[in-house]
Every structure is written in C-alpha cells, then in structure tokens.
C-alpha cells in the first residue's frame, strides 16, 4: 500500500498548511526550510529566515545552551516536548512547546534536524489565570512612573523586606504583590492573600493566626491560619487600612518578633513569612487621626510603592486594551482585532474609578456583545455609551456637580449613577463599575462624612 505523498503534491505545501511551526537546519545550524506557521509565530517571513543561523531567527530561551536540537543530533534520537519562550520581533514573549528530530537522507545518514514548535500562549494564559502566577513582565505599561517602579521591583523583591503597596482599587496591587513574590527567593513557596477588609475582627484573627482545638465552642480541631500556610513564602495583606486596631497590635508582634500564637495556644510559633501589605487608604492621615497604629505603619512602610490610577496613565489604555483583547480572544476563542476610534475616544475620556480592573471588565463585557472583529460603541456597557446620560447631568445624580469637582465627587457621581440605574442594588452597581462592593460602600461613606 502506498504511504507517501502523491508525486504532484510538494511536501512544502503540506508543511505550510499545518498550524505548527516547522523548520529544518543543516549540520552547520543554517536554516534550510521555514514553514508559514513558523513565520506567523516568530513574526519573521520565511524568505528572511532561510540561510540564517537558527538562533538568529528563532530567538528563544532555549537557543543558548538549552537547544534540544544539539542532543538530538548527537544521539540521533528525537527530543520531545521541551518548553520555553521565544521573543517575537515586536518584543512580545510567546510561550512555546517544541520537539526536535534528526533529519536523514535516503541512505539513513543524519544530514540535519527538524524542529517543530507550537504557540502555547492560550494554554499559558489559562494556566496563569488558574495559578495566578504573575511576573514583572505581566504588568503592562508605557508610563514613566510605572516603568521606574518596575525597575526597582526586582531588587526589592530579592531583598525580602516588607513592602507597602499604595493605590486605588483596581490598580493592580495584588498583581504587584504576586510579581514581588515570583521574583523573590521565596518564589517556590506559597503566596497567600488575605483581604483584611472582608472579614470582621474576630474572624480575621482566626483566619490569620489559626486556632487550636477547644479555643472556642465550634473549634473541634486545629486549623492553621494564613500565616502558617504562608510559611517560607509571602503573605499578602490586602486592604490593611481596614484592619481593626486590636489585630494591628498582634500583627505588629509578628512583624517585630517573627512569632505568632494561634487562638487558644500558649506556645509561640515561628513565622518565616515575607509580608506585602496594600491599601487604597491614606495610612499617614489615618495614623494622625489615631485610626492606624504608627508603629505598625513604620514596620510596614519599609519599602513603599505607589501605583498610579489609570486616569493618570492614560498612555497605557491602548496597551491594556490590546492586552485584554488578546487575553479574551484566547479565553473565548474569538478573533476580535481592535476597538473602534470612537471607543478609544470614550475610553480616553473616562475617569476609570475602577481603574485597570474596570477596563478589563469593559473589554470582557464588549466581548459578549461583539460578533465581529471590531468593538464598537454599541458593545460597551450602558454607562459608557454616548447616548447614555453623561455623568455630570443632574437627573442621574442627586445634587449638581460642577466642572471643578474633585475626583471624590466624580467617583461618587459614578457610583450614584450606577446605583440609580440598578435601583439601589450595591452589588450590581459595583459589578458595573468594576469595583468591589466595599469600595462602593467606602465612596458613599466618604460622601456622608463630608
């Protein structure tokens, strides 16, 4: 039975039709064939690749010292399922899986090698979403302030010092915390996050420090706290400004003496944990008002990183829009290419009280409604649509806000408009704005205090 290709079908046309990148090299590492998919994945046209050294075209993390082709040609055996990343001509990192096999002539003599590789970006993005493992390079920015902050992140991460992250909700404080962990010497140990604003004081204490059996009525067996679970790794304390004062004292002790006591225990347990704390509140003012312990503030404020809100780094909006479109395309299996100019204009004018998280939610929302390749204004959430009432129109806000109104007023305005639309449902309003229900509550409380 015939097993080869029909004579009138050139092998190259078959190789050009497959989705995997395939290239061949001779024994001098010169590329002798480069299929269309290889060109698409690397961003290098095949005609530019052939005749060049493979490492000058492929530009991957396996090229210098970890090339699978080298042992493959030496042993004359295939080397399968290696992974790494390659760098596209535009500087974008692409996760790849690759295999190498020896290439033989009709006499069975090895005359070179063939490498096949796959773009693993969609799988990697899914894994990243599941594992929540992020690095500095996952923080996308063109903003000079952010770039300077990212520059000092690796040495800060390696230092092991306590870090205080300051920024509004949705600016990416947890992403920074995770990047600090990933870049640190503790990267192979757990990263544990606790939202200090989400639980009442007593619950937060047992959540943080755990408890021993019999510590209270329902404590039937020992339960490890988050500090225990983070041993050797990093404990991220989000919304640290919302931590009740009695618990602040206990946290201070952990930071000072590196020990903690589970509820109901009399024996201190060593805490080998790196602390990263974050808040959207003004801790210095809280210290002055006596709402936050000064000694704890100084303990946390060893290294301080300020993350600017999205409205102060509008140059990042196109970059982030492209990133979220790519992400959603991979997650949803769509092929949306861009947003229209009108959508760009709307996004540039928007204040983003929910910051990057709000932008991500806007793109995710648009993906649900957009059937084609371009996101238009009709695919945006109602509150962004041009025909929707402008935020400063009096009918959607109880009380006028003039043009000189501050950011707090604009945030309040957005919250009130969303509440109005959702008939006072705070969860729905928070969802629409891409912020947490706690943030909605805080914005309303601040306005009441005024």
């Amino acid at each position, binding site marked *: 039975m015939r097993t080869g290709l029909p004579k009138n079908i050139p092998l190259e046309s078959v190789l050009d039709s497959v989705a995997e990148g395939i290239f061949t090299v001779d024994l001098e590492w010169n590329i002798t064939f480069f299929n269309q998919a290889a060109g698409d994945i690397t961003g290098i046209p095949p005609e530019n690749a052939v005749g060049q050294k493979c490492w000058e075209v492929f530009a991957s993390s396996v090229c210098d010292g970890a090339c699978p082709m080298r042992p493959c040609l030496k042993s004359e055996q295939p080397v399968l399922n290696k992974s790494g990343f390659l760098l596209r001509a535009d500087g974008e990192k692409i996760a790849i899986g690759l295999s190498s096999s020896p290439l033989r002539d009709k006499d069975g003599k090895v005359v070179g090698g063939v490498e096949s590789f796959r773009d693993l970006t969609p799988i990697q993005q899914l894994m990243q979403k599941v594992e929540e493992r992020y690095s500095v390079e996952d923080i996308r920015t063109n903003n000079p302030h952010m770039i300077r902050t990212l*520059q000092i992140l690796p040495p800060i991460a390696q230092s092991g010092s306590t870090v205080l992250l300051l920024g509004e909700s949705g600016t990416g404080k947890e992403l920074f915390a995770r990047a600090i962990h990933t870049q640190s010497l503790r990267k192979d140990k757990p990263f544990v996050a606790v939202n200090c604003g989400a639980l009442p004081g007593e619950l937060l204490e047992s959540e943080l420090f755990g408890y021993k059996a019999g510590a209270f009525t329902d404590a039937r067996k020992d339960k490890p706290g988050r500090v225990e679970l983070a041993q050797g790794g990093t404990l991220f304390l989000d919304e640290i400004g919302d931590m009740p004062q009695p618990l602040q004292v206990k946290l201070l002790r952990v930071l000072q003496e590196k020990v903690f006591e589970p509820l109901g225990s009399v024996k201190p347990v060593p805490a080998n944990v790196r602390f990263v704390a974050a808040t959207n509140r003004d801790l210095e003012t809280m210290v002055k008002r006596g709402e936050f312990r000064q000694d704890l503030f100084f303990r946390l404020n060893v290294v301080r990183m300020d993350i600017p809100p999205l409205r102060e780094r509008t140059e990042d909006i196109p970059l982030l829009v492209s990133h979220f479109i790519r992400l959603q395309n991979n997650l949803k299996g769509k092929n949306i290419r861009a947003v229209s100019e009108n959508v760009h204009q709307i996004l540039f004018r928007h204040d983003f009280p929910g910051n990057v998280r709000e932008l991500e939610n806007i793109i995710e929302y648009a993906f649900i409604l957009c059937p084609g390749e371009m996101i238009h204004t009709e695919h945006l959430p109602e509150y962004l649509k041009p025909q929707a009432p402008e935020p400063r129109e009096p009918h959607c806000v109880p009380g006028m806000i003039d043009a000189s109104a501050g950011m707090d007023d604009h945030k309040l305005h957005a919250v009130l408009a969303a509440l109005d639309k959702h008939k006072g449902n705070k969860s729905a309003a928070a969802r629409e704005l891409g912020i947490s229900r706690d943030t909605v509550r805080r914005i309303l409380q601040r306005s009441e205090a005024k």
Partner: protein
Amino acid sequence: MDICIAGYQNRVATLLETATELRLYTLEDGRVVRSGMTAMPTAGAASLPAYLKTMGVDIVICGGLSTAVRNGFEAMGIQIIPWVKGPIEAVLAAYLEDRMDQMIMPGRSGKTAR
C-alpha cells in the same frame, strides 16, 4: 563612554535573558581603552538596567529583549541597540566603524532607543 555587550560564549547572546556574561568596554576617541567582563547577575535581565546604570554603562548591545526590559533601560537613560547577532569582536568592530546595521538579526529592526 562605556558600552556593554551581552554575550553567550564568544557571540552576542540570542536574548538578553540568556546571556551568561557581560563584556564591558570603555571607549575614547573611537577606540577601546579598557575592557572587562562580568557574569550576568543572578536576579536576571529585569535587574540589568539598574545594575548597569550603577556601573556607568551608557550603551547596551544585545540580542532580543522584551518590551518590559527595554522600557527599563529607557527609564534609566541607557541607550539600547537590540537584535544584534554575531561574534562579540566583530560586533565591537562594527560599532566602532559605525556599521551596526550589518549586524542585525534577520527580520528585526535594530533601531536604537534612548
């Protein structure tokens, strides 16, 4: 002026991240007056801009580098000549003779950034 070439063995490393050594040269009046070598820092490419800034490096010649690291060099005011290929000595000679355009990897732009 101090320049740094990110190398692997005797050639420019394919990527800045896979470089194993940093060749350092001090240039005066178009010639090398001092040279040295140091290992790539263990903290990796992301830490390089700050590291090379403290060493007084003005220009970095390297293979591919990611946008994030490139932004870092720009923020530090270090000029980058990326996507360079070839033996280190040949690249150095090309730089001194102002013909770096001949040393750029196929399909890439070695456009400098400051």
